[in-house]
């Protein structure tokens, strides 16, 4: 069981602040590090994996500093975001090399177990240069698991994966977490994070914006005013019907056609809308969320 502890950690590059006074504890189980691009997720993971010194504050793994301390890599498996690998090696050679560098007693066997775990046994003798993005991701994963680490850090692991590979990796992460490993992965997609992570840490613009289980984060993100544009067969009727319902805070008829809706309760609104439309014989032509971009969700979180 390993715990990563960040205490009042800040990191700046010249006069740009990438991480601003973040304190968090990452314990056993799967933790999702959620935030938009450029929020400082990679900077945080670099500091948690000993590849960056915090400008102020401390980052420790089980009480040991991570910076300039190569011993910590006995416990850590790191899956970097960057694609680059030793392209001239085969998948098997690459994972075996990683096992050897860890000084394992039987590098070959460890590599085979690790490769099997990520389902790359069939492709292990091809050179990495022929691998697809998803295969690269999996062989990276195998290389980071080869020494059976208690901590697994993954930077944007789902990028470039097809749905099936995504499901498989999610399953793998869940298993790792259930085994008591400390698993942390970063993502900018809420749906991705909440499917795997028990605990979610949200970072926005370098700050630690929210922390909690996925239910708490989802409520924070969805119990906020949501704006939609509806196009219907009868805008005026639909607007008046919706206004009468508690889930809608405001409705405005747009001069060019359509209704702008501000929903106060997203969950209820999405249930009520089709029913009301059907009951009143109004045909729904289009329902478009206008501020569903992740940035607006995060902006809301920061201001909350």
């Amino acid at each position: 069981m390993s715990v990563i502890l960040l205490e009042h950690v800040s990191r700046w590059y010249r006069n740009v602040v990438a991480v601003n006074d973040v304190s968090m504890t990452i314990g056993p189980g799967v933790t999702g590090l959620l935030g938009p691009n450029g929020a400082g997720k990679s900077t945080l993971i670099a500091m948690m994996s000993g590849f960056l010194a915090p400008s102020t504050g401390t980052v420790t793994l089980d009480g040991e500093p991570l910076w300039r301390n190569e011993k910590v890599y006995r416990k850590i498996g790191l899956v970097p975001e960057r694609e680059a690998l030793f392209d001239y090696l085969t998948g098997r050679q690459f994972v075996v090399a990683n096992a050897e560098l860890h000084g394992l007693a039987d590098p070959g066997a460890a590599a085979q177990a690790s490769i099997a775990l990520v389902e790359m046994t069939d492709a292990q003798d091809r050179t990495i240069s022929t691998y697809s993005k998803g295969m690269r991701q999996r062989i990276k994963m195998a290389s980071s698991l080869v020494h059976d680490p208690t901590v697994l850090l993954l930077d944007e692991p789902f990028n470039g994966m097809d749905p099936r590979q995504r499901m498989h990796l999610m399953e793998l992460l869940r298993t790792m977490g259930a085994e008591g490993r400390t698993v942390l992965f970063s993502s900018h997609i809420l749906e991705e994070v909440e499917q795997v992570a028990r605990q979610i840490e949200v970072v926005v613009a370098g700050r630690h914006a929210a922390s909690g289980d996925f239910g708490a984060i989802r409520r924070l993100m969805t119990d906020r005013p949501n704006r939609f544009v509806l196009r219907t067969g009868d805008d005026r009727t639909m607007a008046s019907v919706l206004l009468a319902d508690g889930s809608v805070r405001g409705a405005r008829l747009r001069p060019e056609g359509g209704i702008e809706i501000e929903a106060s309760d997203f969950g209820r609104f999405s249930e009520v809308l089709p029913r009301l439309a059907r009951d009143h014989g109004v045909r729904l032509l289009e329902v478009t969320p206008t501020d569903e971009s992740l940035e607006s969700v995060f902006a809301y979180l920061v201001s909350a």
Partner: protein
Amino acid sequence: MSVTFSTTVARIGVRSVFGRRRGVLLFVLPAVLIGLAVLVRLLVGEDELAARNTLYGLGLVVVVPLVALLATTGLLAPEIDDGSISYLLAKPISRYTIVLSKLAVATACVVAFAVVPVLAAGLVLRTSEPSFGLGLGLGAFTGGLAYCALFALLSVLTRHAVVVGLIYLLIWESLLGGLLDGVRWLSVSRWSAAIAEPVADVSLVDGLGVGYAAVATTLVIVLGVWLTGRRLRAFNLTGDE
């Protein structure tokens, strides 16, 4: 962490040097040197001045540093550039193990593609005096080691190690070294020539003691290795974004 030699790092290093098109140059440079030596021998015969100019002017000043530059930067620069060095660094091994294992590969390249060719060219040019080739081979070896250490440090300091290394070789070692006498005190090529002198029994550079050259060469090697390892201990994966 104790410092050892890692066959894994070395093995990956060998693949990295020869897995790139640049690696071909490692074969071209010594071929040119030996080819020229054969040509000079055929045209001029066994002549001390011609032999000296070929082996010193082309061997020690051009081939040795270029082989060291190609080998060392091929081992370090691409991995640092694309971030794949993180797979070596995220391991519980001393950073000096990584540096020394890579430098062992670089040294092997220098021996195979610079020292042995210089030795062979020396024997071609002065068959009757094998000590000539031997001395210049020794100079090529010490100079090559110092250049490797220097270029290793350059690789971890800048992303443009090859270009900076070439500029340094062209401007400092070749151009200024030829124009200004004082450069000899701070020139790896001239130190290697000074080390070659007593064994080869020729005069290559004036006013540079073999003692000074040996100490300066050792200092560059030790400092280069030490600073490279230190820099790798504090390696930033995210770069300086």
